[in-house]
């Protein structure tokens, strides 16, 4: 199993039963992907696209309805693989009655780590919580709780970091620090699965991205492939309703059809230019959204 990928997801589906006779909700359908050694993989999608459900199936918090997950070739429940994972949940929270140092000591003991207080001080300093080690978590802001979560995830020097919206709600400086830490961990050899709504973060640090929409995997590839696989154009027209300029991103294949329809609608085309694609453009095009 030494050559198995850190994470392999195969035909994963999850249905949630609804109360009474309302049937069931298909949260994710036949999703397959993997995270290879040393990769940072971005996991993106709308709210409710199935990102958190997939992550919870990967971690064994949810039981898949169909398909399966393997971590280095083993089941997620195997203790040997759980030790190699660091997890940052969405909106993390911890018991208010403890302070970070107590938490780190308890988690270390539960994980069988032999760290000292000085090691945890270094870790807290690294995630930006220096000076807060003895302060009760009840006094922590959302951002500080996320930093705490990062400290716990990094404590065991994990081989696979699974992060569910780790930078949501953080200020730009904290986001930058988080990105730097993720890159440092990656350069140490850790693989990362990063679920995020902040597409610029994903674009900056990920080598590959997976796009989910309505529980289905709709696009996957290296960042270079995703950003360069088709030509996009930006059309600027005058809106008849507001009289203001409106932009629309369109693929090369659809360009002529869209221009014809705009002409038929008597819209004034101000300019047509080649658009440099961002991950947001790819995401919008893939999920059927548009950039205005």
């Amino acid at each position, binding site marked *: 199993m030494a050559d198995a990928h850190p994470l392999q997801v195969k035909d994963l589906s999850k249905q*949630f039963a609804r109360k009474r006779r309302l049937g069931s909700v298909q949260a994710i359908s036949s999703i397959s992907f993997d995270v290879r050694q040393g990769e940072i993989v971005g996991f993106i999608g709308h709210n409710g696209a199935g990102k958190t459900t997939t992550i*919870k199936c990967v*971690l*064994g*918090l*949810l*039981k898949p309805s169909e398909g399966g997950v393997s971590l280095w070739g083993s089941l997620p*429940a195997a*203790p040997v693989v*759980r030790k190699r*994972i*660091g*997890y940052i*949940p969405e*909106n*993390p*929270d*911890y*018991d208010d*009655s*403890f302070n970070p140092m107590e938490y780190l000591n*308890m*988690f270390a*003991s*539960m*994980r*069988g780590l032999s760290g000292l207080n000085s090691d945890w001080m270094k870790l807290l300093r690294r995630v930006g919580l220096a000076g807060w080690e003895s302060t009760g978590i009840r006094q922590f802001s959302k951002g500080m709780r996320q930093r705490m*979560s990062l400290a*716990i995830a990094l404590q065991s020097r994990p081989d696979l970091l699974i992060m569910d919206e780790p930078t949501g709600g953080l200020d730009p400086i904290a986001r930058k620090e988080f990105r730097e830490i993720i890159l440092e961990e990656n350069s140490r050899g850790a693989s990362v699965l990063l679920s995020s709504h902040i597409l610029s973060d994903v674009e900056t640090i990920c080598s590959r991205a997976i796009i989910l929409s309505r529980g289905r995997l709709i696009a996957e590839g290296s960042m270079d492939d995703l950003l360069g696989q088709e030509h996009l154009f930006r059309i600027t027209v005058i809106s008849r309703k507001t009289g203001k300029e409106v932009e629309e991103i369109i693929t090369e294949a659809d360009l002529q059809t869209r221009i014809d329809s705009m002409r038929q609608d008597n819209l004034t085309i101000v300019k047509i230019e080649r658009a440099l694609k961002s991950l947001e453009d790819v995401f919008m095009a893939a999920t059927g959204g548009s950039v205005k």
Partner: protein
Amino acid sequence: MKAVFTFSLMTLRMLFRRRTLWGILLIILLALAGIASVPSFDVSNQGRFILDFGLFGIEVGALLLALGLAATLYPRDRETRTLMPLIAVPLSRWQYLLGRFLGAALIQAAALLVTCLGLMLILLFHKLPIPGDLLPATLLIIVEGWFLLSTVFFFSFFTSPPLNWPLTTMLFIVSQMSVAEFVGLLPSAPGLMRAVRMILPHADVFHIKDPIAHGFAIEPVYFLVAIFYGLCYSAFMLSLALAVFRGRDLK
């Protein structure tokens, strides 16, 4: 087992820092003081009265402690998402359940020993003798408390705390009933009621307050059998709780 031990200590510390424990403990001690202040019509029965009602008060205290300490543990862990990082990485579900149970059981036992000490002080204050079986009687109530605690954990995996309270209390009341009393609830189906009563717990085995109050000696083997029964039933309830918990999706 190191993870379970650490997690149980974490639970113990967490519960120790919550006001719920101290609030319930204060209520029990005030209730004991209240019982002791009720004047007995017959001065020679004062000791019997305090012992009988005092041990009953401690037993009800065990129920209150079980509910107050454990009914919100799992629901709160889920609501605040404290559960996710625990179950996702360092702990498996059985370790979580056992750690939480052991932590709560230790603090519940400590609180009940404090109430026993309170009862002893009341007896001393009234210049009454302290029976030798008072401590073993409290030990049996502690074991009953653990059984109640495991019941609270069982219900907490599929009900809300407001529903957990009446369900556990109902089981507590039913578990005190004799077979005849239980059959009397539905006299038209005595066979069924007898069978159901066999399955339901017999918490009456933990009650030795009457013999103690009346000065009868209790055989050591009775204590051992009662403790063994209580521990086995607690383990059974925890196994049921684990079966429910294992089937749960942690959304």
